[in-house]
C-alpha cells in the first residue's frame, strides 16, 4: 500500500469515492501496516532512565540501598521476557574496603552479585545485568561489572550468573547496595537504566 501526500482540500469541493479511497482509506492502511510492523519487531521499552541529581551514596557502616527500581507485578508474565539494567557510578578515592551487591526481589530477595571486599580507589564503575524469565517463578540472571579509571592500572571486572525463583506476579525490586566497614561516602551511584525486552 503506497503513501500519498495528504490532500489539501478545496473550498466547496465535493469529494469522490476515488479521493476518499486514496487519501483516507489507503493512507490509513499505510500507517496501520507500518505500526503493526514495528510492534512486531519486539522493541524494548524503557521502564526507567534516570541520572541522580543528588548521587546516591552509602551511609554509615550498614548496607545501603543506592538504587532500586520496582518491576511491577506480571511484567515478566511470559517466558523469554528480559529485563536489562545498567547502573553507573564511582568509588571514593580511599583505600577503604568497599562492597557492592545486586539483588532481584529487594535486599531480602535473590542476591545476584556480591563484589566482596574491594580495595579499589577512586574508580568509576559500570554494571550491566540481564534477568530473563525461564519459567513460572523462575528467572536466570547474568551480571557484568567493571571498575576502572581512564588509566588502566590494577582494575577489576567480573561476570556472574545466577538463578532466581522470585514470584513475578508480585512487585519485584532490582536493587543495588553499597557498604563499607569504614562508613559512608565510599560508594556512589549516578545512574540507572531499566529496559524490558
Amino acid at each position, binding site marked *: 500500500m503506497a503513501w500519498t501526500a495528504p490532500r489539501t482540500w478545496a473550498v466547496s469541493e465535493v469529494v469522490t469515492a476515488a479521493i476518499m479511497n486514496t487519501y483516507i482509506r489507503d493512507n*490509513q492502511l499505510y500507517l496501520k501496516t507500518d505500526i503493526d510492523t514495528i510492534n512486531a519487531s519486539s522493541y524494548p521499552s524503557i521502564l526507567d532512565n534516570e541520572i541522580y541529581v543528588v548521587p546516591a551514596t552509602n551511609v554509615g557502616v550498614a548496607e545501603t540501598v543506592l538504587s532500586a527500581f520496582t518491576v511491577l507485578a506480571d511484567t515478566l508474565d511470559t517466558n523469554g521476557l528480559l529485563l536489562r539494567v545498567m547502573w553507573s557510578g564511582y568509588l571514593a578515592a580511599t583505600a577503604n574496603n568497599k562492597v557492592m551487591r545486586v539483588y532481584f526481589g529487594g535486599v531480602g530477595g535473590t542476591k545476584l552479585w556480591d563484589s566482596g571486599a574491594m580495595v579499589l580507589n577512586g574508580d568509576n564503575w559500570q554494571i550491566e545485568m540481564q534477568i530473563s524469565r525461564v519459567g513460572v517463578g523462575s528467572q536466570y540472571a547474568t551480571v557484568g561489572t567493571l571498575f576502572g579509571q581512564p588509566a*588502566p592500572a590494577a582494575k577489576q571486572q567480573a561476570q556472574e550468573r545466577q538463578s532466581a525463583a522470585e514470584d513475578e506476579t508480585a512487585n519485584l525490586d532490582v536493587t543495588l547496595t553499597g557498604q563499607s566497614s569504614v562508613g559512608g561516602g565510599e560508594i556512589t551511584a549516578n545512574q540507572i537504566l531499566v529496559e524490558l525486552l
Partner: protein
Amino acid sequence: MTATWTAPRTWVAAEVPDKAMMDQFIRDNQEYLKESLAAFDSSVFVLDSQSSIAGVPNVGTAKTALMQFAVPADTLAEIGTTLRVTATGRTAANANQKQLILGWGAIGGPSVEQPLDTGLNITWGSEWRVRAWIRQATVGSQFCSAYALYGAAAPAAGYQSADRAYGYQDEGDVIRVALDGGSNAGANQIWAHSFLVELLRAPA
C-alpha cells in the same frame, strides 16, 4: 488503548457519508493511530549501524575519527533521551601505544566532549569494545557514562576503563558522535570494526 481500529472503508461513487461513518472510519481510526504511536515513546530505535570486516584504521599520528555518526538536530530535545553507542575493533600486534576516545561535538569539528579516553595505554594486539550512554540531562547538557574493554584473546593482560562526565552541546544542532583512535607510532595501529548508535526514548 481506548480507540478501536476498523478496516478502512472503501468508498463508493455517489455515496453520501453520514456522521456515523465519519466518526467510525475517520475519527476513531485517527485516534487509534495516534494512540499506537504513543506506545513508542519509551522505545529503542537504531539510528546507525556500521560495520567493516577490514576495519577502519587510524591515519598518521593525529587522532582519527574511526567511525562516527551525525545525530540529527533536536534528537535529544527531550530530557532523558539517551544515545547508546557500542563499538568494537582491534589493535595492531605490536607494542606501540594506542588510544581510544569516545566523544561528541559539533558536526565537522572535534569531539569537544570526551568522557572516555583510554590514554595511550592500549598496546599489544587487543580486541576492544566500547560502550557509552549519552543521556540528555538538562537543556544544553548531557551526561555520559562509558567503558572500554581491551585485551588479547588470552585473558592475561586484559584491561578496562570506565568513566563518566557531563558535556555541554546544543541539542538543537547536529551532534557528531565519534569514536576516535590514535597512536604516536602513526597509521594502522588501531581499527574500528563496528559502530552502533541506538536512541532510547525517555519513559512516557
